[in-house]
């Protein structure tokens, strides 16, 4: 779905020619995409090279001659280890890249390049919902004097547009010349795709034209601008009604912006052939009694109940799960602060207005977003994402646009559906005692915290790649490319210990001393407590909290499982604690704040200990 093309008009003598930088980008992108979008295709076509290469199974085409000075470095496909290896050697071996990146003596026809790309998409990726052509070049005017070639290129660009291919341009300026889109490329690039007319106009160019002298910054800025376009935007749901009130709807689209990326599942590999091959599992369903193969339509759903099955027809199952049509329906508004920090069950979904179903959606959506931002409010909504999907009560949280250092968008403006837990999803807190820190100790901790703010006082996910995920694919790459195993994984999530020590070490030590002092003082006041008694303070002032029901002041009020102190003491003196049942022992021990874990013998031992120490 993605093609990086590169103009190879490299400047000899420079460390990172634009072409070499583009190749590095492609290499980095390829590695990244294998992790993030393992089923996406990618190809690399160099143009303006002295060499030409194009392969096609179609005998009717004229082989490499059809597209002179086009070099198909990697055909459009899901990348293989060989593709990565080839690119890697090009990126790492200067000699090799120099021999390939030789500019052609005659100018390349851009019409030809675009048609070459067209044919690659047509044959290799028919029917893909998103097909994009990335053009990286520093030549803003390939056909200065040839108007016919220029027109031909515009026609071929229109072909690509009609095919549904989106062209993204990554221009690179030269030290003495700013890249001028209007000379040629404004005839090539379209403002939206025919498949997604709602797609916004391309944002202001964020590719910072870099000086070719500064190879690193060129690579860096190219990488960042390509990365921002690397993933085609795919909607999670399209044109869902957002109902602001009875009879008032606008339409929105939903996007997944946050999603936990995990290593792809392991698969089975067949090793008997020349090449290792992935074996695909095929499941057939059969009836357990006769082992006959069954059709989907025969299957009934049943729930286990009382040692038997309670069955429903598929229609009934649908009816049971149906809570109405897909919708985001606003129930009302609350302050953002009324949504507790803990009220979270999974990642949120981003929504953005769409004019497709309701003209005027955008302005209404914008008005709502701005009101909620201003007043720090949220809408509480009833959200059904798809037909028969489980309804989720969510908070619709407004999100402002956030810009990065160079004015690029880091977070889009819109609203977020934050799914809230139901009462069923909330766990109760485990019992514990509460010992509040004295103010002096809190003050010292405050100093520590103030020393250790994260850079720019915010959590920036981009700074923290997932170490386990990176390691997984690093090793796979090593195995696939037959490289040497790396020694130590790179893990950017490990705190910067040296800095912590340098910046806050002294304050932490002060805090530690204060804790010792304050704790000693507290112990003096509250009396020393053995560790077994800590669980629930046996002080008369603080009745034990553990699961004891309010017993109307009557000690035997706990029913047949309770025993009073005298009785149990008698058992203790007669050495007959063993005769009591476990629940009776436990219930008495709970009252005394003793641990009730372990086997019966442990319990008896603990009770004995209790009386021995008395």
């Amino acid at each position, binding site marked *: 779905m993605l093609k990086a093309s590169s103009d190879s008009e490299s400047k000899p003598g420079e460390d990172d020619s634009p072409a070499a930088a583009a190749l590095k980008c492609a290499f980095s992108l390829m590695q990244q995409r294998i992790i993030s979008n393992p089923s996406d295709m990618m190809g690399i076509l160099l143009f303006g090279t002295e060499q030409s290469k194009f392969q096609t199974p179609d005998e009717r085409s004229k082989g490499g001659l059809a597209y002179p000075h086009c070099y198909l470095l990697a055909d459009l496909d899901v990348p293989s280890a060989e593709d990565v290896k080839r690119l890697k050697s090009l990126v790492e071996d200067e000699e090799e890249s120099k021999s390939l990146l030789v500019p052609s003596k005659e100018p390349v026809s851009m019409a030809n390049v675009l048609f070459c790309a067209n044919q690659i998409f*047509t044959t290799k990726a028919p029917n893909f919902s998103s097909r994009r052509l990335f053009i990286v070049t520093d030549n803003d005017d390939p056909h200065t004097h040839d108007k016919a070639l220029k027109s031909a290129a515009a026609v071929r660009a229109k072909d690509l547009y009609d095919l549904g291919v989106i062209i993204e341009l990554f221009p690179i300026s030269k030290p003495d010349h700013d890249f001028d889109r209007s000379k040629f490329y404004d005839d090539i690039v379209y403002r*939206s795709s025919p498949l997604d007319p709602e797609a916004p106009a391309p944002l202001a160019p964020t590719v910072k034209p870099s000086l070719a002298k500064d190879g690193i910054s060129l690579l860096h800025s190219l990488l960042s601008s390509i990365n921002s376009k690397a993933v085609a935007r795919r909607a999670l749901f399209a044109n869902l009604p957002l109902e602001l009130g009875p009879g*008032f709807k606008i339409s929105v689209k939903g996007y997944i912006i946050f999603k*936990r990326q995990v290593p792809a599942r392991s698969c089975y590999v067949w090793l008997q052939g020349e090449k290792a091959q992935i074996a695909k599992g095929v499941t057939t369903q*059969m009836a357990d009694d006769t082992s006959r193969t069954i059709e989907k339509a025969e299957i009934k759903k*049943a729930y286990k109940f009382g040692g038997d099955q309670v069955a429903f027809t598929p229609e009934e199952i649908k009816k049971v799960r149906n809570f109405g049509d897909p919708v985001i329906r606003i129930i009302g508004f609350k302050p953002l602060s009324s949504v507790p920090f803990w009220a979270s069950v999974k990642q949120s979904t981003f929504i953005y207005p769409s004019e497709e179903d309701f003209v005027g959606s955008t302005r209404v959506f914008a008005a709502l977003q701005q009101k909620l931002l201003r007043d720090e409010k949220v809408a509480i909504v009833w959200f059904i994402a798809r037909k028969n999907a489980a309804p989720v009560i969510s908070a619709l949280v407004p999100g402002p646009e956030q810009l990065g250092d160079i004015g690029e968008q880091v977070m889009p403006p819109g609203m977020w559906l934050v799914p809230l837990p*139901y009462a069923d999803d909330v766990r109760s807190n485990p019992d514990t005692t509460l010992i509040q820190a004295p103010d002096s100790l809190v003050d010292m901790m405050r100093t520590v915290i103030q020393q250790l703010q994260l850079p720019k006082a915010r959590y920036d996910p981009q*700074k923290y790649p997932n170490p386990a995920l990176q390691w997984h694919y690093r090793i796979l790459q090593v195995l696939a490319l037959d490289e040497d195993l790396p020694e130590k994984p790179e893990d950017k999530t490990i705190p910067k210990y040296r800095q912590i020590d340098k910046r806050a070490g002294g304050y932490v030590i002060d805090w530690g001393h204060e804790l010792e002092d304050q704790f000693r003082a507290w*112990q003096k006041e509250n009396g020393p407590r053995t560790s077994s008694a800590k669980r629930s303070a046996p002080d008369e002032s603080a009745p034990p909290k553990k699961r004891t029901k309010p017993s109307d002041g009557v000690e035997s009020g706990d029913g*047949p499982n309770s025993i009073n102190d005298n009785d149990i003491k008698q058992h203790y003196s007669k050495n007959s604690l063993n005769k009591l049942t476990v629940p009776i022992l436990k219930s008495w021990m709970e009252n005394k704040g003793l641990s009730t874990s372990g086997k019966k013998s442990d319990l008896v031992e603990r009770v004995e200990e209790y009386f021995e120490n008395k």
Partner: protein
Amino acid sequence: MLTMADKEATVYIVDVGASMGERHHGRSETDLDWALRYVWDKITSTVATGRKTATLGVVGLRTDDTTNELDSEEGYAHISVIQPISQILMPDLRSLRSALVPSSTNSGDAISALVIAIQMISTYCKKLKYRRKIILLTDARGSMETEDIDEITKKINEDNIELVILGVDFDDPEYGVKEEDKDPRKAQNEETLKSLTETCDGVFGTLQQAVDELGIPRIKSVRPVPSYKGQLTLGDPEKYDSAMSIDVERYPRTMVAKPPSASQFVTASNPADGDASIQSSATMAGSSDLGPSAGQAALTSVRNARTYQIEDSEAPGGKRDVDRDDLAKGYEYGRTAVHISETDENITKLETMASFDIIGFVPKDKYERYMHMSTTCIVIAQRTNDKAQMALSSLIHALWELESYAVARLVTKDDKSPLIVLLAPSIEADYECLLDVQLPFAEDVRSYRFPPLDRVQTVSGKVLTEHRNIPTRELQDAMDTYVDSMDLSTFGRDDEGNPAEFMPIEDTFSPVLHRIDQCVRWRAVHPAEPIPPPYEILTRFSRPPDDLVEQASDPLRDLIKIADVKKVSPRQKGRKRARDRTKPLSGLDVDELLGREKRTKISPENAVPEFKQMLETTEDLGAIQDASKQMSVIIENLIRHSVGDSGYGRAIEALNAMREELTALEEPTLYNDFVRSLKNKLLKGDLGGDRRDMWWEIRRNRVGLVDKKLSSRSEVSEEEAAQFYTSR
């Protein structure tokens, strides 16, 4: 380890006297059926737990027969133990259903039934730890002997039995139930039962309320299980003296309660015919020995058999089965298979040590709520460690005072993947803890960009603040007023009737979870009846409350008027897009360039664009027909010359383009005629052999007939279009 909930033993005493078979006060069901609603709900809830230790028994009061331990004694007639105390399974439910029907007598003493129930519990539970409970449902129209009542009260209290008495049309002024012209004997009995419950701290209620409250979901409580026990550190204690470490424990705060999952079954082949099937299906079969369940045939479970295939160009169909034993574990790296030998099994796993390590701190207002990635947990100090409690408390309070959060790296167990969590302080009257939630890693964020909502940037770079997509002052004001009028934060009422937050989390119940629970339990006792509607409590929050809507109706009306939102009709959506959209950024008229070139012949290599361009530059029906004809030939050739399925993708793409363009041009018949003939050729094998897979692709991609709904010019009905996809 699972928590061992208390063992419980409950006896239901159900009055089935002849008077219970009557209908009263305009109710359409008999008093017994009404009471049974409660009974079935409670019993099936117990069954649904699947716990062996959740036991119950059922005693029939005013039964025709007499079967109980004391049946030889006077006063114990017409009381029958229908179900001794035990775990209840489906067969028990079925026999209960046939037993709990109105009798033809009105004799039988409720007090005596209580004695029987006490006796049953006493015998079953002995002195063991049990939750003991007796629930009596009656209309109190029978005669009662009250002589021994003190004795009974004493026994109930001694054994710590919870007593619940629910009566048909019992008076309950608090709930607003008062039975007019009450039978004097009933009135007296009610009084007796009421005082009985009062002396043994029981519950006395009217059935109306009990039935009304059946929909209130029961929330399962789960014992907290720690997800991390160890130290919370700041700095590296192994390397630096200045490092802080506090012993902590981490427990879940939220965890999604999943509805039970259904298993797959099919109707069993007649078990009487095959010996082999009897054994496996015996436990499954909804045994048909009882009348009411006869509607349900026996079921047998579905087994999944998995086979493995590899691609093999020489094998028929391009695929070949391989033996499971010849397969090794591996991963995909791009399209390359990477095999991992058994000895290296964990080679791709990052080695980690359990730890909870603070990375740094961020101010609360620099954090966006939508970054929450997961369920939440709480972090408290080790529960036996006073010093840790004091230490953690200082961190909690310092964060609170600074309005800050901590960011930490968490490995819950050795060799688990590291997580990054955000830690927030939580201080309540008698509880302090840190709350944590997972944050995204770099790979978890997709950088999608969207245009701003408060300004519009044109292609030329001009920034507009007035545009049809930007709210006017007027619209913004109307929205502000509406939002303010729909405020929920004081719309609710607390127990004392004071304004409170409407729809707090504790009032919202998972609709699917409880709906499935309701339906399964209903179906278990009503196998032949349709599923009841969902309880109101499950859909209460599916729309704004009526009072609020009423209150906000004026602001809403104003907002609608000013917003001037127009629905786009489905037909408009299909229309050809405006011409100016198809121009490149420069606005160059490519059509004109094309027009000069005059494309009249569509080349197979570039079919889709050329087809579209041909239609774009013409209005002439003849030219449209010509383009369609050329396209048809290209599509047929793609299929005819396809090696295996290699050409199908392109054929589908071309079909799709043709379908869309001709629909937009309101010439659906051109397409429909072609796709009909194509189907015919495919199924007859006229396009280079067996091309049924191509037909399957057409079905899968839904590029069949264009129906009336899609294009008003079509003569094909929706039914016909759907019918088209079948293989006939």
